[in-house]
C-alpha cells in the first residue's frame, strides 16, 4: 500500500471505531450492524469489531453474566489478564470473555497462589462497596480490583456500573464510576471519575451527558474496617452530591435557558390571532 492508502485505511478504521465507541448504552450491536450495511459486503469490518468492542467493553465496564447463573460481573481493564481473560475478584474466578459476542464462555476457580495481591483489605473494601451499591443502585454491579498506584505502591480500584436498557420504552442509560484508592500509610489518596449517559429515542434522539471527577484524602491507620468504610462513605457522599447537582442543573436549565429560548405563549398570554397579525403586516 502507498502512504496515501495507509492514511486512508487508518482514517477508515478510526471512523468505524469512533462510531462504535460513541454507542449509547446497549446499542453497540445496532450501531455495528448499520456500519456493516453502510460499508457494504466488499469491505470486511469484523476485525475492527474485535478491536473496538474490546475497547468499548473495557471503557464502559461491561456488565457480563456468569453462564448458567444470574450473577453479574464487570469486564474492566483493571481485571484484564489478556484480551480474552478477566479476573472476577468477587467470585475468585478467571473468566474467558468473548468481546464480540459479549459473553463469558468459561469460568475457572482461582487457585490459592493466583489470588489477587493484598486480598484481605480488598475483600473488606468489597464488602462495603457491595453494601453501598445494593442500597443506591437498583441494577448496580461492582467490583474491587487489587492494583498498583503509579509510584508502585499498593492500590485498590473500585468500579461501579449501573446500566439499564429498555428498548421497548425507547431509552437506555448508564451510570459508571471508577475510584482508585492508593493504600499509603497515613493518608490515602482517592481519585474518582463518574458519569451519567442516557439516551431517549422515542420520536427523536435525545442525549444526556454528565461527568465529573473528585480527589479525596482519607486517613489510613491500622484498622482496615474503619478505613474501607470511611472510603465508601465518602464515595457515596460524592456520588450523591454529583447526582444532586445534576438534578439542580435540570431545574436551572428549565427555569432559565429553556424559557429564554422559546416562550410558552407570547406576552399577551394568548395564542396568535393570525388574521390580525397578517393585517398588521400589511399596513406597515
Amino acid at each position, binding site marked *: 500500500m502507498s502512504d496515501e492508502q495507509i492514511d486512508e485505511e487508518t482514517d477508515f478504521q478510526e471512523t468505524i471505531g469512533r462510531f462504535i465507541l460513541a454507542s449509547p448504552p446497549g446499542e453497540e450491536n445496532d450501531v455495528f450492524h448499520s456500519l456493516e450495511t453502510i460499508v457494504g459486503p466488499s469491505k470486511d469490518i469484523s476485525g475492527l469489531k474485535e478491536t473496538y468492542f474490546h475497547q468499548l467493553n473495557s471503557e464502559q465496564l461491561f456488565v457480563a453474566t456468569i453462564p448458567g447463573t444470574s450473577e453479574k460481573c464487570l469486564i474492566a481493564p483493571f481485571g484484564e489478564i489478556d484480551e480474552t481473560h478477566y479476573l472476577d475478584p468477587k467470585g475468585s474466578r478467571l473468566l474467558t470473555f468473548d468481546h464480540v459476542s459479549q459473553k463469558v464462555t468459561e469460568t475457572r476457580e482461582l487457585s490459592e497462589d493466583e489470588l489477587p495481591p493484598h486480598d484481605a483489605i480488598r475483600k473488606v473494601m468489597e464488602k462495603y462497596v457491595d453494601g453501598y451499591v445494593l442500597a443506591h443502585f437498583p441494577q448496580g454491579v461492582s467490583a474491587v480490583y487489587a492494583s498498583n498506584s503509579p509510584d508502585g505502591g499498593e492500590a485498590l480500584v473500585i468500579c461501579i456500573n449501573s446500566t439499564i436498557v429498555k428498548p421497548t420504552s425507547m431509552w437506555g442509560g448508564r451510570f459508571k464510576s471508577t475510584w482508585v484508592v492508593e493504600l499509603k500509610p497515613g493518608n490515602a489518596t482517592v481519585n474518582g471519575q463518574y458519569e451519567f449517559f442516557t439516551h431517549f429515542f422515542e420520536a427523536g434522539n*435525545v442525549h444526556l451527558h454528565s461527568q465529573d471527577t473528585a480527589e479525596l484524602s482519607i486517613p489510613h491507620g491500622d484498622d482496615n474496617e474503619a478505613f474501607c468504610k470511611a472510603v465508601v462513605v465518602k464515595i457515596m457522599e460524592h456520588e450523591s452530591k454529583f447526582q444532586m447537582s445534576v438534578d439542580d442543573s435540570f431545574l436551572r436549565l428549565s427555569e432559565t435557558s429553556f424559557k429564554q429560548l422559546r416562550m410558552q405563549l407570547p406576552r399577551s398570554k394568548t395564542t396568535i390571532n393570525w388574521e390580525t397579525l397578517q393585517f398588521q403586516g400589511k399596513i406597515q
Partner: protein
Amino acid sequence: MAENKRMAACLDITRRMNPAEVEQTQGDLIFLAEDLTGQILANVDLPLQLETDTSVGRSFIISDYNRDGDSYRSPHSNKYFPPYAEGALPSAELRQLETEANELMAKYVELYYEKGGESSAYFWDSSDGVAAAVLIKKEYNSKETGQQGTWNSIHIFKITPFGTGKFNFTLTTTVSLQLGIDILNLAGNLVRKAERKSVRIQSGSDKVRTMGQMIEESENKMRAHIETVYFGRLKGIVSDLRSVTELKNLPSNRMVIAPN
C-alpha cells in the same frame, strides 16, 4: 435498493449518535459512504447557521433548502451569497408566497422568541404541488448563569391541491434543542408530524396564514413535549439508574455504610 438500505443505515446511526456532535457524524458518514453525499447532506440536519445579505444588511438562515452549489439564496433580496449568477430562483408566484411567509414568520418569531430570534422561509415546486421550509433559530448564552442553549426548529411543508380551491397541508417539524450548564449537557432532536386536509384557500395570504397556524400549534405542542422529555423523562432515567436515598426492601444482612 442497496442504496436505500445504506441510506437507512446512515440515518439509523444519526439517530443514535449525540446530536451535539452531528457535524462530526455527518462528516464521518460521508467519509464512509461518499456516493451517498447528496442524500446525507439533504437528510442529516446540521445546526442552523446565519449568513448576511449584504444588499439589505440583514441576516438569513442558511441550509440545504436554500443552497445551490456553495451559495445560499437570501429570502430578503432573492440573491445568492456568495454571488452565484446561475443559482436557481423560485417562480414569481412562489417568490410572492415566500416574501409574504418571511414577513409573517418574522412577526411570529418576535412574539414567541423575542430578541435574537431568527427565521427564514424558502419555497420550491415539488412533483405534486408546493413545498416549503420554515427555519427558526435562537441562541442563549449567559455568563451570569453559566448556561448556554440553542433552539432550532425546522418545519417542512408539502402543500398539494385537493379539489377546486382546496389544499392539503402536511408538516414535519423537527426541533433540535441543546442546553448546557457546568457538568450537564442535554442535546436532542424531536420530530412531530401534522396535517390539515381540504383547507379552503382563496389567496396566497390564506396559504401562508394556514402555515403559520400549523407552525404555532406544532411548536407549542412540541415545546410542551420537550419539557416532559428533557426535564421529566431524562431526569427520571437518572434516578432510575441511581437513587440518592436508600432503596427500600434491602436485605437485612447487608453491610450498612451509612455515616455514623
